[in-house]
C-alpha cells in the first residue's frame, strides 16, 4: 500500500513536469497594436547634443517581457553645455512608425529597462518575440534632441537565470548532504546528537505534573502551521503528548491559529493512539482562542492563573508575548521549558524560564526526541552545511585579506 502510493505520486510528478515542459515550449507569440503618442520635435540651437550609439537587446535572465536599451551619453551631459536634464526612451514596432514614450532615465545614466506586464489582458502587456525599434532623446527644459533609431530587438524568456548559479549550487549541495544522510540513517546507522538541556528535562517535568495532579500547558507559539519552528514544535508535542497519555496527565493547548489547532489535534490524537489510550484524548483541550497577539496572551494568562499548570512549554514562533507568558507562568509557579527561532525573544526566555532551546536547537530537539531517520539525517546534513559555510568563511576571509577577487566572486548572486 505504502509502496503503491509512492509510485503513484512519482508518476503524477513526472506527468506534471512533462506538462510544464510542453507548456513552456509552446511559447506565447502574439502581436498587439501599439498606442502611439506624438513626439514633439525641437531641434533649436539650444537643444543638447543627441545621445548616440543606441543599442537594444533582450534583458537577460528574465521571463521575456522586457528589452534593455543602452546609449552613449549626450556630449552635453555633465560636459559641454551641461544642459541635459534627462533621457526619454521611445519605442516603435517599425523603424519609421510612430514612436511611443516608454520611460525616462536621469542625466548621467545610459541604461533603461523597458518592462511590461506578462498578461495579455494587461494594458501594459509586453509581447515577447516581436521586433521593436528604439530611440533615445536627451531633454533640457522642454527641448529635445533625438538619437537615430536602434537596430531591432525582441524580448524572449530565458530558460535559466545565470546570476543565480551560486544559489543553484547551494541548493544542490545541501540537498545532497541531507538526502545522503537520510539514506544512511534509514539503513540503521546510529547518528549521534549531543544532549540538549531543555529536552533532558521533559520527562522530569511531566512526572512532576502527574504527582501534583495539575495539567500541562503547551503553547505552540504565534506562528502558522507552515513555519519551521511550529513544525518542530508539532514533533516535540507528539512526544510530550505520548508521555502525558502514558501518565494520564491532561494537556492543554490553546491555539492562536485555526490551522495550527487542527494539526495539533491530529498530532495529539495520534500520540494517544500510539500510547494505547485513545479513550483519554480530549479534543476540547486543544482549542482556538483568537488570532490577535495580545488577546491571545490575555487568554493564555487567564488559563495559567486559573489552572496553575505544573509545566508550561513554549516551543515555536514567539514575538513580544514571550516575556508576558513566561512571567505569568513563573508567577503561577510552573516549571517552564522554552524554545524559539525568533532571535529577539530568546533573551527573555533565557532570563525567565528554566530551560531554553536557542534557535536551531529547537529543530535539533525535534530530531533528538523523534529519533526518526529523516530528522536525524537532515540534522546531520545541516551540520555538513554549517561545515561548508565555515570553510567558505575561513577561505573567504583569507582571500579578502590577500585580495583574491576570483574567490569572492563565487559568492556573488545577481538578481
Amino acid at each position, binding site marked *: 500500500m505504502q509502496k503503491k502510493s509512492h509510485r503513484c505520486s512519482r508518476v503524477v510528478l513526472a506527468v506534471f513536469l512533462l506538462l510544464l515542459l510542453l507548456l513552456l515550449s509552446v511559447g506565447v507569440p502574439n502581436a498587439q497594436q501599439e498606442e502611439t503618442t506624438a513626439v514633439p520635435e525641437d531641434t533649436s540651437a539650444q537643444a543638447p547634443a543627441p545621445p548616440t550609439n543606441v543599442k537594444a537587446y533582450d534583458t537577460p535572465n528574465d521571463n521575456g517581457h522586457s528589452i534593455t536599451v543602452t546609449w552613449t551619453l549626450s556630449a552635453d551631459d555633465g560636459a559641454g553645455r551641461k544642459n541635459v536634464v534627462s533621457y526619454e526612451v521611445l519605442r516603435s514596432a517599425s523603424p519609421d512608425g510612430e514612436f511611443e514614450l516608454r520611460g525616462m532615465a536621469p542625466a548621467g545614466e545610459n541604461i533603461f529597462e523597458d518592462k511590461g506586464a506578462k*498578461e495579455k*489582458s494587461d494594458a501594459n502587456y509586453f509581447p515577447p518575440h516581436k521586433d521593436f525599434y528604439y530611440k533615445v532623446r536627451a531633454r533640457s527644459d522642454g527641448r529635445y534632441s533625438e538619437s537615430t533609431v536602434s537596430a531591432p530587438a525582441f524580448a524572449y524568456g530565458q530558460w535559466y537565470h545565470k546570476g543565480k548559479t551560486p*544559489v543553484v549550487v*547551494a*541548493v544542490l549541495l*545541501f540537498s545532497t548532504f541531507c538526502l545522503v544522510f537520510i539514506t544512511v540513517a534509514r539503513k540503521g546507522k546510529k*547518528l*549521534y*546528537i*549531543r544532549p540538549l538541556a531543555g529536552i533532558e528535562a521533559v520527562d522530569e517535568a511531566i512526572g512532576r505534573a502527574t504527582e501534583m495532579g495539575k495539567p500541562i500547558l503547551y503553547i505552540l507559539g504565534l506562528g502558522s*502551521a*507552515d*513555519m*519551521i519552528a511550529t513544525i518542530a514544535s508539532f514533533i516535540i508535542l507528539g512526544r510530550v503528548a505520548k508521555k502525558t497519555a502514558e501518565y494520564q496527565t491532561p494537556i492543554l493547548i490553546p491555539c492562536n491559529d*485555526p490551522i495550527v489547532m*487542527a*494539526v495539533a489535534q491530529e498530532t495529539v490524537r495520534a500520540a494517544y493512539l500510539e500510547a494505547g489510550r485513545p479513550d483519554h484524548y480530549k479534543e476540547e483541550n486543544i482549542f482556538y*482562542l*483568537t*488570532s*490577535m497577539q*495580545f*488577546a491571545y496572551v*490575555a*487568554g493564555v494568562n*487567564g488559563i495559567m*492563573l486559573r489552572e496553575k499548570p505544573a509545566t508550561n512549554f513554549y516551543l515555536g514562533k514567539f514575538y513580544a508575548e514571550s516575556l508576558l507568558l513566561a512571567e505569568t507562568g513563573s508567577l503561577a509557579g510552573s516549571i517552564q521549558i522554552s524554545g524559539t527561532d525568533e*532571535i*529577539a525573544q*530568546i*533573551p*527573555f526566555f*533565557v*532570563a525567565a524560564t528554566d530551560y531554553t532551546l*536557542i*534557535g*536551531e*536547537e529547537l529543530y*535539533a530537539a525535534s*530530531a*533528538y526526541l523523534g529519533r526518526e531517520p529523516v530528522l536525524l539525517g537532515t*540534522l*546531520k546534513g*545541516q*551540520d555538513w552545511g*554549517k561545515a561548508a*559555510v*565555515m570553510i567558505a*568563511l*575561513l577561505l*573567504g*576571509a*583569507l*582571500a*579578502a*585579506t590577500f585580495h583574491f577577487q576570483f574567490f*569572492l566572486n563565487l*559568492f*556573488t*548572486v545577481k538578481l
Partner: protein
Amino acid sequence: MSSELIGVWIGAFLTLGIFSFLYKDNPFYKFSEALFVGVSAGYWFVVTFWQYFLPKLIDNLVLAYTVLTSQGRVDYHWVYLLGGGLGVLMLLRLFPTVGWLSRWSLAFIVGTTAGLQFTRYLESNGIKQVQGTILPLIVGGSLNTTVGNIVIVVGTFCGLIYFFFSKEHKGAFGGAARVGVWFLMITFGALFGYTVMSRMSLLIGRMDYLFQIWLGLY
C-alpha cells in the same frame, strides 16, 4: 460632548481597564479583555473581507464572467475558481465527515511556503550573510576595523560551532563552542537592552495619552 471627546474617554476607560490587571485579575480587566478579543476578531474579519477576499477572488471571477458575457470567450481568470474552491475546502473542517478535505488546502499552503522559503533563506540568510562575513582580517591603517573584522569572523565561526549537533562539545571543539556561546550571550544581552528600551517607549506613549490627551495635565 463631541464624538471625539467621547472617544478619548472610551479609550482612557479601556486603557485603565487593561492596566488594572497589574493590580490583579478583575471583572474590569476581563471586560476589556473580552472586548479586545471580540473587536480584534471583527477587525480581521472586515479587513480580510475588503482586502483579500474581494480583490483576489471575487474581482477576478467577476472579470472572468464579464469577459464571458461580453466577448463570449472563456478567460484565464476562471482558474481562480480553483483557488476559491481550495479556500472553501478549508471551511469544511467545521463538518467532521468531510473535514479531511481541508487537508488539500493545507497542503497547498504548506507547499507554497516551503517552496518560497527554500530559495529565499538559502539566498538572503545563507549566501548573503556568508558574503557579508567574508572580511579582510587586516585592514591597513584602521585598528578599529581590523579588530572588528576579526571579532566578526571569529564570532560567527565559533557561533556556528556551538550549533553543531552531531559532535560532542569536547576539547578544542568544545572550547570554540564555548567562545561561540559567549558571542551568543552578548548578542542576547544587546537584544535584551534593546527590548527594554522599546517596551518603555510603549509605556511612555500610553502615559502620555492618559496625562495629556485625556486629562490635559500638561
